Each structure stands twice: as structure tokens, then as C-alpha cells.
């Protein structure tokens, strides 16, 4: 009963955040950077940040996560971290030999005013960056946004610092991945391949954070978008950004720099959002939707129809990150469920606006994001109006246990289960998986609490 400390009465808090539903920008930048082939993410700050981010990503993906640190000391914090970063760049290229170093800042380096652009330029001018190798950067102070904005910033950095426009457009479509799992990125590529659409997906953590057992420790596993592919994004005929918070800024940057028109879509989670993605991709590629995809969709709708009685009217509390929350809420509505309490620590106007649209179908829903939109508030809401299902990352397990609510793990981080990084949540197969998971916990609960005489074989 860990959370017996949560009182029912909701009081406005002025400063305090309790049990956050978000974390800080640098970890998002680190995750995004791992989606470039041969890239070593670099944390420009003190050792702890890098260590925490690596630990958290390691726990979530169960994979070795490599990243280096500027190892700030008191001296660096007073005199600036330029010397540390320059030394780091030299050390990294000579010892770890990556293709790219993706530097992100921390609250520490931001506050002392280190200018990553200027320092990287100096490194280049001083000849510290070997030919054919690159250093990119993103500004990710921890006191702004969340891990999601950090991800968006690093992906934007990739677009801004790699894309080149040769003046000749290709048939290629850029797909900017919002924060999703390696399995999701694999699924997007698979859908595009089924449709015969020529795409470049970035970032791409598949085959990086779900690498096979080889008996070796591969510092740079085989996956990840290559530099050549990133350069080519400037000549692509268009971009599809999957997520208005974590992916759209990169698409905007590409449009600005290389005149690549873009369309922003919800991350393809659930039926409707996947439909829109499939149609948009089909249109952009000028290719029809293949029968196999149509059939897969048909199977999802069939299962939804078969099981509608179990979903209808069930109240759901969910928490997590914007680009996942938006389509997930829509999917819950499509299933006939009632998304009742929704919390996301990540602030953002685009997010709020889109949620407002989605929640027109659920005017009863409590929704809050940004400051004090934490799991403590979510728990209080649940105490006041109980729900039938909770969806969110691992930290939700405390609430689920205390309130005896069926719980589906979804989002980041998931520290106590496997599967999330191996099976997709996007596309029709992802929708099917979500249905299976939701139905599984709802029915398990029904069996668990059924009175002896009401315990049945067929449900």
C-alpha cells in the first residue's frame, strides 16, 4: 500500500510535483541519437545525468546503452564547459570511433551558457572532427519541456544539420518517427515495404535497441538511419511527421531548410490513426493500399466487433506522452470505452489543441498536462471517480495495486516487463495487440473477482 499516502481531496499545489509523469529532455535526445547508425550520444554535463539516462534506457530496453559524458567538475561549471567538450570530441573519435557524435546539453551546461553550435564549430575549425565524421547537437535544458521535447529537439537537429538539398527531388518520402519503440519503427518500415513506398525513416532504433545475441558487445549495432540517408532527406518529395509534438518540429525544419513539404499525422496507434497514416502514405507514394493491409484492418475491425460488449462504457485512466496519448484516447473511444482521467507531464499548445478535438467525443474527461499534471493528481482523480482500467508506464503499477485496477503497461519507461520493444503498438498489428492486452487484463480481473457461482468457462 505504497500510495496510502495519497489523500482523496484534490488541492491546487503551487510548487510541488509529486510522482512525475515525465522526465527531462536529455534522455529523449539520447534515445533519438541512438537511432542514427554508428552514433555515440554525448551528454554535456556532469556524470550523473549520463549515468541516469543510460540506466533508465537500459532498464527499459534491456540492452546495453552507450553514451559518453563531458564529466563536468566544479572548474567546468565556473569557467564553462568548452574545454571539456573539445576534449571529449577528441577522446571519443580516437577511442570509440563513431560515425557521429550527437551532443545534447543538460541544465548545467545550459545555465552556464555553453553554446553547442559555437563549440562544435570550433572543434571543426581546430580539426578535431575527422573527415567523413560528424558532430551534431541539440539544446536540451532539463528545466524546459520534458523527455519528449528533448527527443524532438535532437530529431530536429538531425534534419537541420544533415539534410542537403541538391535541387533535384526524388521519389523518397521522409517519415519522421515520433518517440516510439524499435518494434514500432520496424512496423512502419514493414508497412511502407508492403505498400512499395520508398521511404527513409528517422530516427530508427530498430536493430539498435533490440539487437540479437551475438556473443559480442557491439558498440554500434547494425541498425539506425545512416548519414547518407539523412543527407538525402533534403531531396525527398515530402515528409510525414508521426506526432505533432515529437516529430513535427523536424519536418518543419526540413521544410524551412530544403523546401520539403510535410504533413503531420497522429502517431498510428489504434484504428483511426492507422487508417489516416495508411491513406496518407498511399497518397504520398502514389501507390494503392495492398490487399494484405486491407485484410489486416478487416481483422482488427472483426475483433472489435466480436468483443464490443466487453469494451463498451468501461472507464479508463491513462497517462503518458502526448503523441501516444492522443491516438490512444481516440482508439479507446473507437472501442466504446470512456477515457475518464488523462494526465501527461509534457506541456504543449499543439498537444492541448489536438486533445481538445479528440475529447469533443468525451466531454466528461478530466485532462491535464504540464506542471503538476503528475501521477499523484491522477491517483486522486481515480480515488474520486474510480475506473475499470489503467494504462500507462511501469510507475502506474502502484496505483493499479492500491486501487485494484486492471493495468496495461504502455509508454515509457516500462521497467518490469518485456515485449514493449519487440512487439509493435502502431499499425493494425499494434491495434490488435492493444486490444488483446486490454481485453486480457479486463477478463483476468473478471475471473479473479468472480463469485464462485458466477465463475464461467465461456465469457
Amino acid at each position, binding site marked *: 500500500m*505504497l500510495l496510502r*499516502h495519497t489523500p482523496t481531496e484534490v488541492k491546487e*499545489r*503551487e*510548487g*510541488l*510535483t*509529486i510522482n*512525475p509523469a515525465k*522526465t*527531462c*529532455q536529455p*534522455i529523449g535526445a539520447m534515445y533519438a541519437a541512438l537511432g542514427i547508425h554508428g552514433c555515440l550520444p554525448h551528454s554535456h*554535463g*556532469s*556524470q*550523473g*545525468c549520463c*549515468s*541516469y539516462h543510460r*540506466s*533508465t534506457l*537500459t*532498464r527499459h*530496453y*534491456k*540492452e546495453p546503452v*552507450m*553514451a*559518453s*559524458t*563531458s*564529466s*563536468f*567538475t*566544479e572548474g*567546468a*561549471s565556473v569557467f564553462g564547459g568548452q574545454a*571539456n567538450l573539445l*576534449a*571529449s570530441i577528441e*577522446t571519443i573519435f580516437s*577511442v570509440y*570511433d563513431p560515425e557521429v557524435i550527437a551532443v545534447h546539453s543538460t*541544465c*548545467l551546461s545550459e*545555465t552556464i551558457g555553453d553554446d553547442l553550435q559555437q563549440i562544435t564549430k570550433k572543434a571543426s575549425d581546430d580539426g578535431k572532427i575527422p573527415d567523413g565524421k560528424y558532430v551534431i547537437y541539440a539544446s536540451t535544458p*532539463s*528545466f524546459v519541456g*520534458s523527455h519528449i521535447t528533448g527527443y524532438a529537439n535532437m530529431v530536429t537537429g538531425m534534419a537541420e544539420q544533415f539534410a542537403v538539398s541538391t535541387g533535384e527531388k526524388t521519389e523518397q518520402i521522409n517519415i519522421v518517427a515520433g518517440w516510439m519503440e524499435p518494434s514500432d519503427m520496424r512496423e512502419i518500415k514493414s508497412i511502407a515495404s508492403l505498400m512499395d513506398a520508398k521511404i527513409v525513416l528517422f530516427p530508427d532504433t530498430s536493430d539498435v535497441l533490440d539487437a540479437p*545475441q*551475438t*556473443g*559480442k*558487445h*557491439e*558498440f554500434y549495432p547494425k541498425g539506425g538511419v545512416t548519414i547518407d540517408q539523412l543527407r538525402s532527406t533534403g531531396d525527398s518529395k515530402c515528409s510525414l511527421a508521426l506526432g505533432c509534438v515529437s516529430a513535427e518540429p523536424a519536418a518543419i525544419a526540413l521544410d524551412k531548410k530544403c523546401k520539403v513539404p510535410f504533413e503531420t499525422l497522429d502517431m498510428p496507434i489504434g484504428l483511426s490513426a492507422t487508417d489516416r497514416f495508411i491513406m496518407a502514405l498511399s497518397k504520398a507514394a502514389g501507390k494503392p493500399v495492398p490487399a494484405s493491409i486491407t485484410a489486416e484492418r478487416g481483422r482488427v475491425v472483426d475483433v472489435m466487433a466480436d468483443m464490443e460488449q466487453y469494451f463498451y462504457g468501461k472507464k479508463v485512466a491513462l497517462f503518458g506522452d502526448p503523441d501516444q496519448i492522443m491516438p490512444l484516447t481516440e482508439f479507446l473511444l473507437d472501442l466504446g470505452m470512456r477515457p475518464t482521467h488523462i494526465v501527461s507531464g509534457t506541456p504543449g499548445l499543439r498537444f492541448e489543441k489536438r486533445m481538445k478535438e479528440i475529447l469533443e467525443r468525451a466531454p466528461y474527461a478530466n485532462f491535464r498536462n504540464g*506542471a503538476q499534471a503528475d501521477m*499523484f493528481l491522477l491517483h486522486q482523480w481515480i480515488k474520486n471517480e474510480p475506473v475499470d482500467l489503467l494504462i500507462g508506464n511501469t*510507475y502506474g503499477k502502484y496505483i493499479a495495486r492500491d486501487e485494484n485496477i486492471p493495468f496495461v503497461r504502455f509508454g515509457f519507461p516500462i521497467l518490469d516487463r518485456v515485449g514493449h520493444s519487440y512487439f509493435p503498438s502502431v499499425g493494425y498489428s499494434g491495434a490488435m495487440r492493444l486490444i488483446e492486452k486490454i481485453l486480457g487484463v479486463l477478463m483476468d480481473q473478471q475471473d479473479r473477482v468472480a463469485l464462485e457461482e458466477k465463475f464461467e468457462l465461456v465469457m
Partner: protein
Amino acid sequence: MDTQNINLLEGREKQVYEKTAGGAEIEIACDKTSLSGSVSQRACVFCGSRVVLYPVADAIHIVHGPIGCAAYTWDIRGAVSSGPELHRLSFSTDLQEMDVIYGGEKKLYKSLVELIDQYQPNAAFIYSTCIIGLIGDDIDAVCKKVAKEKGIPVLPVHSEGFKGTKKDGYKAACHALMKLIGQGSTEGISKYSINILGEFNLAGEAWIIREYYEKMGIEVVATMTGDGRIDDIRRSHGATLNVVQCSGSMTTLAKDMEEKYGIPYIRVSYFGFEDMSKSLYDVAQHFPDRPDIMEKAKEIVRDEIRKYYPEMQKFKAALTGKKAAIYVGGAFKTFSLIKALRTIGMSVVLAGSQTGNKQDYKNLKEMCDEGTVIVDDSNPVELSKFVLEKEADLLIGGVKERPIAFKLGVGFCDHNHERKIPLAGFIGMYYFAKEVYESVMSPVWQFAPRKGGLR
């Protein structure tokens, strides 16, 4: 990059030593921050103080800074409590850009007041993170003010991440505890009493240890900090002896208490039959006028070893000749692990620590077999290299080492945060042996390429 054919990081030569016959004296350069640009396994000052103080269960712990530091340390390891669980909630001032510009003192003050009104805790610890050190919030003043208004100890923990290494965080934690000690009444405390220091009650380990001492007839005044309580800590200066396990973190406090209150301390270890027994005897020896305490200690050791020894032989038979690589936080833990591994027939081919000092490494050299590699502040490249070169069958480490071991196709034992079962005490040695056995002998390795599976 193939991690097997890699040279040592430049500037790290002095932190790696291989014991050879007639080899050079060991002169490991420790106490250094990691080289800029290295993939270090180390953390920061804040991490040090947070992990040490966090198990004090009836206090609130507020992380003053941007959200990350609080988020990553939210319930970071299962330091369990027999009562309140305030420590497992994550409180943060979640500083935003404007706070960084205008200062976070007001936000801290409001947060503290809100929390204390809500929970009526027995004390509050305020951790200052990197950013606080830079923007210069006077957290001491805020703490003082709130302490006065609310009538509970409100303790600043100066743990700005960049101001040193994890060890400095331990010191900051000890300083905060020292402010509590001496505030309570020592009336009624037995002459035969101890404090247990540097035991964090992961998976209930402090309970096991406490029970042994209590069975011996010794009063345990405070456990610092596992399953810790503010009132116990406040009167802990009434104990006769301090028993320090995690030497890296709590020796500072033991020394301070010795200086201020004249309480002597001893270093112990609860890992392995050998060190666990010694820990009980060493404490018993401290009370020579009560031979019954020593008698009781002997009885416990006898009974416990008798209980677990036969089972252990099964593990030993299977594990004899297997090799282990150790890379953990504290050096003292490494000593125990080497002994414990020997008990089950395993040798050690790599021994490393994140926070060892010169003397620790000298001792390590004494203990290790020839050919053993000794490292300070290692990184994944080195670890992989040595594990493969030395053909280890097991890696003992922390969170970040686990998937590396598994990728290499060797067994793993977590000796840090992710422990579900206790490894301390006699029963802990049994669990340790069982865990090592199960991991090393797991049928999965037959499928791993290195052990002859499909390539």
C-alpha cells in the same frame, strides 16, 4: 567497433592493473572524475546522497531542481520499510525556466510547506542539484525558516552533481544525518548497544542483520539508513558501538560520531559466511564483560551454517572452476564477493570498483589470484574486453552491466539496485550461491554463439 580488439582508453592506464608474478607495485589512480568523453559507469554527487538517505522512511525527500533528478531516483531501489513509505514517493520542485532565472527559493518554500502540512513527516531532506549550485538558491535559509515554522528538522543536503564524485554525495548525506544525531534523548539505551550503518535494507537485508544482533542480546538503536526512522537516528549517539557495512558511504558519519560522541566504530561485511560470521564475532568482542554475547554469536553461526552448508555443496560442485568478473560500487563489497565466490568454488578474474581508494586496491591485490585484472572506474568497452579475454562465466555488477553480460553470453548477478532477494547474512549467501548457480548454469547459454550455438 569490435570491443574485443580495443586498447585502453588513453589516460586510463593508471586505473587498470593486472596482477602478475613479480609484477609492479599497485598504484591505481582512483578518486578521479572520469575522463571527459568516456563512457563511464559512474554517477554524480546527488546520486550518492540520494541513495544513502533515501531509505529513511518517515521523512520526506524533496529534490530541488528540474524534474529529471527526481524522476530517475523515484523508488530507484527496493529499500523496504516496516512502516511508513514516504521515502518511496517522488517529490520535486520541478524547476522551470523562469525559476532558473529568478531563483527557486519561493517554490521550494511553498513546496515544503505544502508537503509538511499534508504528511506531517518527522523530518525533511532537501537535495540541491546541479542547477541550484549555479543559481545560488540559499536552501540553508529556506530550511531554517521552515524548520522554525513547522517544528521539524528540515535538512539541506548539498549534493550539486558536478561538485565531485558519488563519494562526495555520501559525505553530504552523512553531514545531514549528523545534524539529526544528538537531538534525541538517550535515556534507557543499553550499554550493550550498536547502530547499524551503511545497510540500506534492500530486499529486507537490514532486518536479517538486526535479528542476528538482537538474538545475541544486543540492542540496535538505529539502522542507518535502511528502514530508518528519524527518532532512532536522533538518539543514536546513545549507542556504544557503530557497525559500518557500506564503508564507502558511512565511514564519514562513523568518524564524525567517534569524534563528537566518542563512539568507536568497526567495519564489517554481511556478504558470505566468512565475513558474516566475523561481523558477529567482532561486535561480540566489543563487549568482553558479557561472554554470553560471544556464546550466542557462535551459536548463531553454527546453526546458520549447518542449515545452509549442505545445499551449498550442490552449487559448489557445479560451479567449481568457473570464473567471475566483479564490477561493483564499493571496494569493500568486492573483498567479500571474492571470498564468497571462493566458497562456491569460483575464482575471480576481474575485480573492479567505482569508488575504491588506494588502500582498497592494495588489499584487493593481496587477495586476488595471479592474472586477475584490477580496475577503478571502468567502462563497458574495458569490461567486455576483460570478460571475454579472461573467459569469465559470470559478471557481477549493476544495472548497466546486466545486458552487456547477457550479450556476451555469460551469467549475471546484480549486486546493486535491482535486488529482489537479500544477499546479506547466512541466508543471503545461500541466495547468492543459488542465483549465481542458476544464472551460470542457465540452459540459454548453450544457444549463445560464444558457447557453440549457431553463429
